[in-house]
C-alpha cells in the first residue's frame, strides 16, 4: 500500500519538476526544479527498498534475524545523491558564467546559437 503511494508521489515529482523546467524563466529556478525531478528517483528507490516492519541493515544494534530493508538500494541512493550534488554544481557554474557573459538568466532569452 505504502509502496503505491510512494510511486504516485515519485511520478508526481517527476512531472511537476519537468513542468517547472519547461516553463522556467530563470536558470537558477531551472536548476532547483531539476533537484525536484531527482527527488522523484529518491522516493521511488526508497519505496523499492523498504520492507514492511523492516529496520535499517546496521547490525551493530540489530540482529541478523530481524527483517531489514534493502541495503543495495540504499547504496544506489547514495550514488544518486552524489550525482545530484555534481549536477547542481556544474549547472550553477554554467549559470553564473552565462550571467557574467551575457547578463541574462532567462533560459528563453539565452538564445545565441541559432544558425
Amino acid at each position, binding site marked *: 500500500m505504502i509502496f503505491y503511494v510512494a510511486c504516485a508521489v*515519485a511520478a508526481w515529482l*517527476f*512531472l511537476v519538476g*519537468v513542468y517547472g*523546467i*519547461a*516553463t*522556467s524563466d530563470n*536558470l537558477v529556478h*531551472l536548476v532547483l526544479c*531539476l533537484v525536484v*525531478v*531527482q527527488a*522523484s*528517483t529518491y522516493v*521511488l*528507490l526508497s519505496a*523499492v527498498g523498504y520492507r514492511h516492519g523492516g529496520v535499517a541493515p546496521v547490525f551493530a544494534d540489530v540482529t541478523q534475524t530481524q527483517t531489514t530493508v534493502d541495503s*543495495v*538500494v540504499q547504496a*544506489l541512493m547514495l*550514488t*544518486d545523491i552524489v*550525482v545530484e550534488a*555534481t*549536477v547542481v554544481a*556544474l*549547472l550553477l557554474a*554554467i*549559470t553564473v*558564467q*552565462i550571467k557574467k*557573459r*551575457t547578463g541574462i538568466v532567462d*533560459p*528563453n532569452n*539565452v*538564445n*545565441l*546559437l*541559432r*544558425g
Partner: protein
Amino acid sequence: MTALPALPVVIPLLMAALLVALGSHLHRRLMDLLALLTAASVAGICAYLTYKSSQGAPIVYWFGNWTPEKHFALGISFVIDPIGGGLATLVAFLICAALLFSWRYLEAVKSLYHALMLIFMAGMCGLCLTGDLFNLFVWFEVMTASGVTLCGYKSEEHGPLQGALNFAVTNTLGAYLTLTGIALIYAYAGSLNMAQVSQTLITHPPGGHLVQIGFLFLVAGFLVKAAVFPFHFWLADAHAVAPTPVCVLFSGVMVELGLYATARIYWSVFASSFHASEGALRTVLLTMGVLTAVVGALQCFTQRHLKRLLAFSTISHVGLMFIGFALLDSDALAGTAIYVIGHGLVKAALFICVGILLHRFQSVDEFELQGIGINSPWTGLLLFLGAIGLSGIPPFTNCVGESMIDESAKKMGLEWLSLVFIFAGAITSGAVLRIGARIWLGWGVRDEDAISRGSQKAHLGPETEGSHRRVPWSMWVPACALLLIALALGEIGPLRSATRTFSDQMLRTADYNALVLEVTPMPSAVRLDPGEFDSSIGKQVIALAIAVLLALLSLFPNVLGSARKSLGNLVDLALRPLKAIHTGRIGDFVAWFIFGIAAYGAILLLCTK
C-alpha cells in the same frame, strides 16, 4: 586475465588523478605525451581483449572477486564480447587521434584538459564493457559530467555555455528516467546484473506492460545521448560550440554509445521477454530511426556553420544506425556494428578538417571561407574524400555495413528502407561536398550580405595561438590515418563473416546468461560465412550522384532558371517546421523530451498484440 579487463577503466582514471595532482609542475608536452601513452595503451589492451573474446566465449570479470554465489550475482561484472570490446577499442583509438590533434591545437589548455579527456575515455570504455545495469548508469554519468565540462571548456564565450547547458539538462533528465527504469526493474527482479535480470524475467515473466515500459524508461537516457528524434536538439548546440577534438569524440563515438547501450540492454536483458511485442518494438525503433535520419539530413543541408552541419549529419547517420538495430536481427546488427566504425572514422576525420580550417582561418562559416581553401589544398582533398565516404560508397567501411543492413531489411520485406539510406547518405554527403566546393574551389555565388549577417553568429574565438601559416603535422596526420583506415577496413575479407559471428554471439541471450552466472561455459561461437549480399554498387552510385547534383544546384541555383523560385519556396516550406521546432530554448527541448517518450510509449503499447 586477473588484471587486464579492469585496466581500460582504471589506467585512465589513475592517470587523470596523477595529472591533476602534478598539474602545475608538468610541462605541457609531457602531459600530452602521458595522456597519449595512456590512450594508446588502453587502445592496445582493448584490442587484445577483443581478440581474446573473439577466440572463445566473452570474458566475464567480477570486480572484487565477487563471483556468483549459487548462481546469484553479488558484485559487478564486466562482460567483454567482441562487439563491446571493439567499440571500446574505437573509443580509445579516437581519443588518441583527438589528443594528437590537440598537440598544437588548444595550446592554451591547462592540465585539466588532459585529465578530463582521460576520464571521458574511462567513462566510455566502462559503458562498453559493463554487464551491470546500475554500473551502466554510473559510467553514463561520468560521460555526461566530463562531456559537459569539455563542451564548455572555452567558458570565456557565451556560445559554449549555452551548448553545455542544453547538453547537461537534457542528458540529466534522460539519466533520471533511466534511473527510474532501473528502480522499476529492480523492484520486480531484485537484481542489477543484466544476465541475472534477464534470467529472472524469463523464469518469472511479469504481467501487464512492465517489460515494455521498463525498457522504454531504462533506455530513455541513452536515446537522448544517441540524439534520436525528438531528443536530438542538444547535440547540434553542443557540437557547434565544443572544441574540435571534443567534437571528434562526440560525433565519432559518444553518440553511437547511446545506440550501443540501447542495443546491449535490449539483447542482454529484455530480448527473450519481448517475444510477444517484438513487432511493436520494431515499429517504434524504425520510427525513431527513419525520423532521425530524415530530420537530421534535411537540417544538415541548411546549415552554414560547418560544425553544426556536421553535427546534423551525425544525427542523420545515427538514425541510419538505429534502423540497423531496429530490424532486431543478427545480420542487421552486424551491419550496424561495421557502420558505426566506418562512420566514426570518417566523421572524426571531417571534424579534424574543420578544425584545421578554424586553426588557419579562424572561422567555421561557409560563406566567410569561400575560396579561401586554395591555400591548403590537402585539407580540401581530405574533406572531399570524407564527403564521398558519407554517401556510403565502396571501398569505405560503412558501405559494407549498409549493404548488410539492406540485405536483412530486404529479407523482412522492408525494401523501402534502402531509400532512406540513399536519401540520408546523398543529402549529408551533398552538404559536405557543397562546403568543400565553396571553400576550396571558390564556387558559388558570393553573397556579401550573407557574410556580414552570419559572421557574428558563427564566430568562434581562436583555439590556437602563434603561427597559423602552416598546418602542423599533428593535425593532418590523424585525419589521413582515420580516412585510410576507413578505406582499408572495408577491404578486409573476413570482416563480414567475423562481425556476423560476433553479433550472432551477442544475440544468444540464454548462453550469455549461463556464462555470466557460471552455470555452464558458453559453447564456442558458430563461425558464420560472410552471408549473401548484393555486391552491386548501383545504389551507392545513385546516392553519390544525387549528392553531387544537390551540391551543384545549391551552389549555382541560377541554372534552374524560372523553376528556381518555386523550387526554393517548396524547399523552404518543407524546412520551415523543422527550423521552427529547433528553437535552442531548453524549455522546448524538455517539453519535446516528455512528449517523445510518451509518444513512443504509446506506439509501443498500442502495437503490442
